[in-house]
């Protein structure tokens, strides 16, 4: 077992949250949120990872061949979809805020 992927996930989550908390710009804040979310992708994929295993596609390899866990890949995909939806919505709101106030400061005036 290597702990590196888990350390990477923890780091991404921490810096993402730090960015959200300290941000002075809405776009920066939204991207920071995406960074924090990418930690969940790393975590999910590393949970299902096996060394020397193939992708979970058995079209041209023997079905007995070791493969990584396809379930976490499906979860990651769903997670990506949710994340993309939220990011798109947040960016749309940020555009509206900029249109009304001419500023992207999260604190407002």
């Amino acid at each position: 077992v290597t702990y590196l992927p888990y350390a990477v996930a923890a780091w991404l989550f921490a810096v993402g949250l730090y960015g959200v908390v300290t941000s002075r710009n809405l776009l920066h804040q939204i991207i920071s949120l995406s960074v924090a979310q990418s930690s969940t992708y790393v975590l999910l994929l590393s949970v299902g990872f096996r060394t020397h295993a193939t992708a979970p596609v058995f079209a041209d390899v023997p079905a007995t061949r070791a493969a990584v866990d396809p379930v976490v890949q499906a979860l990651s995909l769903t997670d990506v979809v949710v994340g993309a939806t939220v990011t798109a919505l947040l960016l749309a709101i940020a555009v509206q805020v900029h249109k009304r106030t001419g500023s992207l400061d999260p604190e407002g005036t």
Partner: protein
Amino acid sequence: VTTNLAPLPVVVPLAAAAVLLAIDVLSIRRWAPAVAFAAAVAETAVAVALLHHTGSVVWFGGWAPRHGVAIGVAFTIDRIGAAGAVLGGGVVTAAVLATPSTVDDAGGLFYALLMTALAGIAGFCLSGDLFNMFVFFELMAVSAFALAAYRTRDVASLRAALSFAVTNSVGAFLVIIGIALLYARTGALNLAQIGRQLTADGRADRLVIMATTCVVVGFLIKAAIAPFHLWLVDTASSAPVPLVMVLAGVLDTLGVFAVARVYWTVLAPSFAAHHAAVRAILVGAGALTAVGAALAAVRTEQPRRRLAFVMISHTGVLLVGVGCLSAAGVAGAAVYAVGDGTAKAALVAGLARAGRAGGALLALGGLAVAGAPVFATALGKAGIDGALSSAGLGWVPILLVLTSALTGAAMLDLAVRVWRAAGEGGVGAGGVGAGGVGPVVGGAALLGGSAAAALLGRWAGGAAGAFTDTAGYAQRVLDGAAALPARAVPAVGFTTASGVADAVGLVGAVALTPLLARGVLRAVRRWRRSSPGDAVAWATVGAAAFATGLAVALR
């Protein structure tokens, strides 16, 4: 045991959302309210029908478990889950009624978002799979974010929507991190399967503590329990009325419901030896939220912001009930959730309507949150009080009495203000909208629901017995066992002590109201809007505190 009805509470609102989008394209917008109303009523009716199919487990695509191993995805129908779907349908129906007169320019899109939120609510209540719970929660959350930002000309509501979406997304990340950790340990996503694997594994070690913290804190952020509540204060004071009704009526409640569901299907055996410690943490968080937010409510001038604090405070009461970690606590919390959720949604509707009708809704809703025994809030609180005494926390009900008195007075004070303004021919207290007849009809129906829920005492006892039967749930889901006779749990009822507590709270609320009208206690005239950064910083602090508490308790 299976039923063909199970998917319908999700399918009906989703289909209606598609129709509503077509309505926008075809420019026949006047049909939108009728379509949304019909769909919400239909969802409610199907959910009521599901109450007669409790014990059913529906495996989609026929992927039933083999040899006790679940690979497929299931809806598990139990009484409390089905009741959540009924409550969601009822509150969304009232929100649809309130929409035409409170939201300018509400086309098919607005109603479609209400419908996708309802589909998420129903799916969340019925899901027997942890990951699907997450997905359905996100469906309702994203719909709610978009509804919160619907009035794009109002910068305050846009900023509130940002805070709402950012904070709740952090909550969602925590939930999915917790799910990933539980999957890493158990290889399962089905609630019953995770629970059984964890029990067989027998370790309540750091990984389980970490996963529990992530899932519970993630859901408590969505429930707006202090210190995770900042987003709700801003959202409830600026978002469209129908969304605030749904937030007050069900969305916050569902965060606490999720904690209860995950605890009783997954975590209960692992934490069996640490019940007292976990109970102290949950009841402590709930009681702090209840009293703190109630104090904030009476000190806040602006009506909708005050109502937001009442919402937060009473979600805290709900967490106290669930935090007792007993069937009696779940039973009391279930009655309270229905009685209080409908009353709070009615209060939102009352604030949307100037004049005597709005004042009357606020007065009745205020009496309901104060614990007038006509409404189910009183019965639910009696159940929670009883569970607290059984858990050796007999002093906590005193805090709940204080909470009822303060939040009741806060709302009755608003009722008096609106009523007086109507007498003087004014448009009402600051922040109160003109409104039409829709909010009044919806609000009155909700208050009727709150009163009717007072008949649920016996029902809730049996429902909580089944809900808290971890082994029975797993046998039903994984081994295809027929619904087992639920353990006998006494019906939720009044005792002398709870009756006295309730009377003190009610009298206190009425007595405090004139003091509030004279401006006693009122201090916070201007509330600094919190930025998403503030809300996330507080959420981080709260999550760290929770993890520390759990780690210390389980060392």
